[in-house]
């Protein structure tokens, strides 16, 4: 149990780091979305911290917490947007501070 708690605390700290960002993917379900998004993130030097994914009907929906470290945010954003256009998904990356601010007191 203590392990689980440690992990939760680590993640909590991680999402409050300045380099934390949230990737969202929305679109029609198809094979390989996670693989392709993860590949781009890997190539850009971003680290995936947490991931949540659901398919409702045929709509794919994924939310990822990543740490972009010292990588160029604009470059990652451009590559993800290009990938989104190629595979017909809406892919966004945003600094996680905006979500924390809105939903945490």
């Amino acid at each position, binding site marked *: 149990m203590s392990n689980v708690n440690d992990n*939760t605390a680590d*993640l*909590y700290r*991680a*999402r409050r780091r300045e380099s934390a960002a*949230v990737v*969202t993917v929305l679109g029609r379900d198809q094979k390989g979305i996670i693989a392709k998004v993860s590949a781009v993130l890997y190539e850009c030097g971003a680290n995936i*911290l*947490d991931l*949540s994914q*659901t398919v409702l009907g045929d709509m794919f*929906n994924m*939310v*990822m*917490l990543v740490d972009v470290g010292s990588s160029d*945010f*604009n470059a990652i*954003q451009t590559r993800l947007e290009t990938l989104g256009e190629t595979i017909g998904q809406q892919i*966004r990356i*945003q*600094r996680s*501070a*905006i*979500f924390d*601010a*809105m*939903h945490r*007191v």
Partner: protein
Amino acid sequence: MIDPREVLDTLRMIDMEKLDVRTITLGISLLGCVSDDAGRLCRRVYDTVTRKAERLVEVGEQIEREFGVPIVNKRISVTPAALIAGALNDPTPVARALDKAAKTTGVHFIGGYAALVQKGMTAADRALIESLPEALSQTDRVCAAVNVASTRAGIDMDAIALCGRAIKELSLRTADSGGFGCAKLVVFANAVEDNPFMAGAFHGPGEGDWAVNVGVSGPGVVKRALEEVRGAPCDEVAECIKRTAFRVTRVGQVVAREAARRLGAPFGIVDLSLAPTPAQGDSVARILEEIGLEVCGGPGSTAALAMLNDAVKKGGVMASSHVGGLSGAFIPLSEDIGMIEAAERGALSIEKLEAMTCVCSVGLDMIAIPGEVTAETISAIIADEAAIGVVNNKTTGARLVPVPGKRAGDSVEFGGLFGRAPILHVKEYSAAAFINRGGRIPAPLTGVRN
């Protein structure tokens, strides 16, 4: 540790409900520019503004990209021009220098062609007010403000008389654009020094060298949230507005902090005003209608607006370390699609709007009136609005646009965020003898607080 529902909630607010940051406004002090030589003064003004705001637009756009929140306007506010042009006979060159600086930095507007005359006018103040028709018709991005009253000082009726005449002449000088020049001028009572919203923004003399002030928006988000509590008692409505205002203001706080950090400027304030735009789904009037009015402007409008305004403040105050500016609900007529439609239906009169300004920020805002209305009547409307601010210890303003050649019931199109305005009927009974008295209305008892 990530809750997909929260993330999708945020995205919905941005995509569907038009949650945005309305403006990042960089306040810049120009007190160091003072000179008795017009050329030197204007060069210093231009250099100071362009140097300090050099990266403002770039930083704004980068934050917009990284945080995924639209930042609609990047603006600059400066020290009231009358304070730095005291040694000039004619302050209009300062307006031209500000306009040029705005264009160089790429900001939408620069505010601060202003005078603070609540207790009396210096020669420079008088010259500035008299120069308004020339300055605002010859520049594109300069916004002006005159503070004519305060709870402490009372109401400067001489200045109000001058402002009425300036508005009338400015309207004629910009007749080909429907008197649009007047949309760039606000006449205030109890003006605030850190307002990020145009046209009334200026960087007050009590401010530091520079500061980042941010204005949020979000009427659409509040309207959508209220759809979930239809039929519930008013207590629940107020709670719902508070929760939503908290979220909206937090977005502003994050953006303000980040902009300040990246610009190397101090964080000033977040103005938690609910600022509408003419776009569908971005209307304060629609919130009042969601609360239960058939149409904004009908009976009940003042009470519903009072509840909205109070709940927005209560929710927003905790969300930001420094709340300032105007911080309330705006009810600009031409900039709110629900207001426009209410006025077109005849539900919203200038008298009802005046009543509504008693319980919200900011005043009679973007009100188009017939071009034939006299300067004295314009002054009288300003005096009424100022009295509300002075007695109630709050900011009020008047941004009146007399539209040359148009009558009540006609309409004028200003375009963009300024929207279109139905021309409101103004009662024709004269107040000329009152306005021509001049002088100063003494400060009310509510101003004697020590």
